[in-house]
């Protein structure tokens, strides 16, 4: 059997595939962060908590209201997005003129509150969410046994990432958005409602977090801390990709998922650290991140 550095090729391919699955989650989450940072200049630390809220929404939908997976997939991002709009209107809009630090502290506080509430209500062990019937089972890819659900995660995330990228980079709406980021006063002077766009952007950014949470619900236990375990890595992804860069966050998310997967093959003990090592190296060589522009 072909081996690469002592690991059989099929096993390596399997691990790369899994890296891609994790990378998909990183990509969707960091994309949301990048959109929010790009538009609002807010470092959204509540992202992890809202990701968790998305997963809990799925669980509650199924448990209390009998809402199936596919409906939840639509409803969870909308619900989380609506929460985001409320947060933006009530709290964040007062902070745009201030230093980044204030937004960071506010959203960090929000994250702690939201997690605390869920922890108090549901405990820490987590709640089970079954994989929908259509997606249970697995593909036999010769080199590995890929659960259909994991394959679906990759497909769904890539689709969402592509649509987001297309919308922001290639459509008129996206052009307004980018213009509003570049020069809000001038854009407003052209008759574009900038505050509304900002509000919707934040709603959309956190809806992406809700979507990722919903995707994660059947793959892991639905757990109040699922977001805080992930968010730090996702921030590292955003920093590596370049703060606010849409394409950067997608590519880096997937790439780092794969690198992390490889680390799990060769030296699992370092798999929680490798992303940060890369971050340190990238910051030394390109302080603005791989895809970021120096200002």
């Amino acid at each position: 059997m072909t081996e690469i550095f002592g690991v059989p090729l099929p096993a390596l391919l399997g691990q790369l595939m899994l890296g891609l699955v994790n990378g998909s989650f990183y990509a969707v989450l960091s994309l949301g962060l990048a959109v929010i940072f790009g538009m609002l200049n807010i470092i959204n630390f509540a992202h992890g908590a809202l990701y968790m809220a998305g997963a809990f929404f799925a669980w509650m939908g199924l448990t209390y209201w009998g809402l199936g997976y596919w409906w939840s997939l639509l409803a969870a991002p909308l619900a989380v997005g609506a929460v985001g709009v409320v947060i933006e209107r009530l709290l964040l809009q007062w902070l745009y003129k201030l230093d980044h630090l204030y937004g960071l502290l506010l959203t960090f506080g929000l994250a702690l509150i939201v997690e605390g509430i869920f922890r108090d209500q549901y405990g820490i062990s987590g709640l089970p969410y079954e994989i929908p019937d259509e997606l249970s089972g697995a593909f036999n890819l010769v080199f590995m046994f890929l659960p259909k659900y994991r394959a679906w995660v990759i497909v769904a995330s890539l689709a969402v990432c592509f649509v987001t990228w297309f919308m922001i980079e290639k459509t008129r709406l996206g052009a307004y958005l980018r213009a509003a980021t570049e020069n809000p006063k001038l854009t407003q002077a052209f008759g574009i409602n900038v505050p509304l766009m900002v509000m919707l952007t934040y709603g959309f950014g956190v809806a992406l977090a809700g979507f990722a949470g919903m995707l994660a619900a059947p793959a892991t236990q639905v757990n109040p801390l699922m977001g805080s375990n992930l968010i730090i890595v996702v921030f590292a992804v955003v920093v590596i990709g370049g703060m606010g860069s849409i394409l950067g966050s997608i590519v880096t998310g997937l790439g780092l998922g794969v690198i992390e997967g490889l680390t799990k093959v060769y030296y699992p003990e370092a798999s929680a650290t490798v992303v940060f090592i890369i971050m340190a190296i990238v910051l030394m060589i390109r302080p603005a991140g791989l895809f970021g522009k120096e200002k």
Partner: protein
Amino acid sequence: MKAKRIAIAIAAALGFAAGAAQAQISDNMVKIGVLTDMSGAYSDLAGAGSVEAVKMAVEDFKAKNKPAFAIEVVAADHQNKGDIASAKAREWFDRDKVDVITDMVTTSTALAAMKVAKDKNRIAIMSGPASTLITNENCNDVAVHYTYDTYALANGTAKAVVKQGGKTWFFLTADYAFGQSLEKDASAVVVANGGKVLGSVRHPFPGTDFSSYLLKAQASGAQVIGLANAGTDTTNSIKQAAEFGITPKQSLAGLLMFITDIHSLGLKATQGMYLTEAFYWDRNDETRAWSKHFFERQKKMPTMVQAGLYSATMHYLNAVKAVNSDDTQKVMAQMKQTKINDFFAKNGYIRADGRMVHDMYLMQVKKPEESKYPWDYYWVRQTIPAEEAAQPLSMSKCPLVKK
């Protein structure tokens, strides 16, 4: 006049006597600190339930004994970090005059806090942590390891599984003191019973995605995948093993699982698994009575950690009452020479190395259709006698053990 003088003398004598009695217990107050995981991965199996169990013990002790001294319970979150645990313990001992610290649910926090207890000459009673390091290399004369340890878990679960025919093993291990200790103990048991360990993989703690490690375990071809981790790491491993089609072709052995994990995963995912516990609420009338009392307050059935803490707190308070002092050495001596007989343990005793020796139980998780009422999760398959459940003193690496 004479009568009056006698009266004054008696009063003075009484006052002196009372004063002397009070002086035995510093500030006339016994302070119990519950140092536990209030918010992290282990907060369901310990956490608020641990604090509640200690409070229950204090209330029951007060109701029964009407002690002349006051008892106060304080609690803090050690966040599963050794440095926070030792800082908090130091603060409690130096500033708040805490007499005894309890729980310490991760091995790293236990090792850090028990060292501080030794420096400050106060007592540390551990119910949450698992590593046998606590009663071996790191043992000291003020620490008690009360509820369970990795030796007992390995001897219960690993032995049972090997005897059922699970001869080849692969370990999925949480990469810190506890996981490594559990893997080591379980490997020894597997080998001693004629099994073989094919390999292991160490994952960072805490983790969410275990699929990579599970794939390695799958590739190893081992019959049994031993989960040397705990809490949410274990539940996620079990869930993902089913997703990747690893179970039921290979079977899983949860080396440290609590009833809260079974509750969280459901019987469908866990049925048939073996696990070792020091306590099961539905084992007999005595355990049921206490657990229902606990359930009324906490809305959850107790884990062995929480039940053990109640028992430990009661044992400590009884010792304080018996020697009428909160002096560390006196209380420790009394605790070590008194047997523990309550709903949690029968004829339990604390050895020189600090291990509380008592029976453990091998459980098997029921099938969904066998479960008749809420929290009806286990068959008690075997009682592991105390002497088998505890590491023999001849193997001890604790300097306090005279050989």
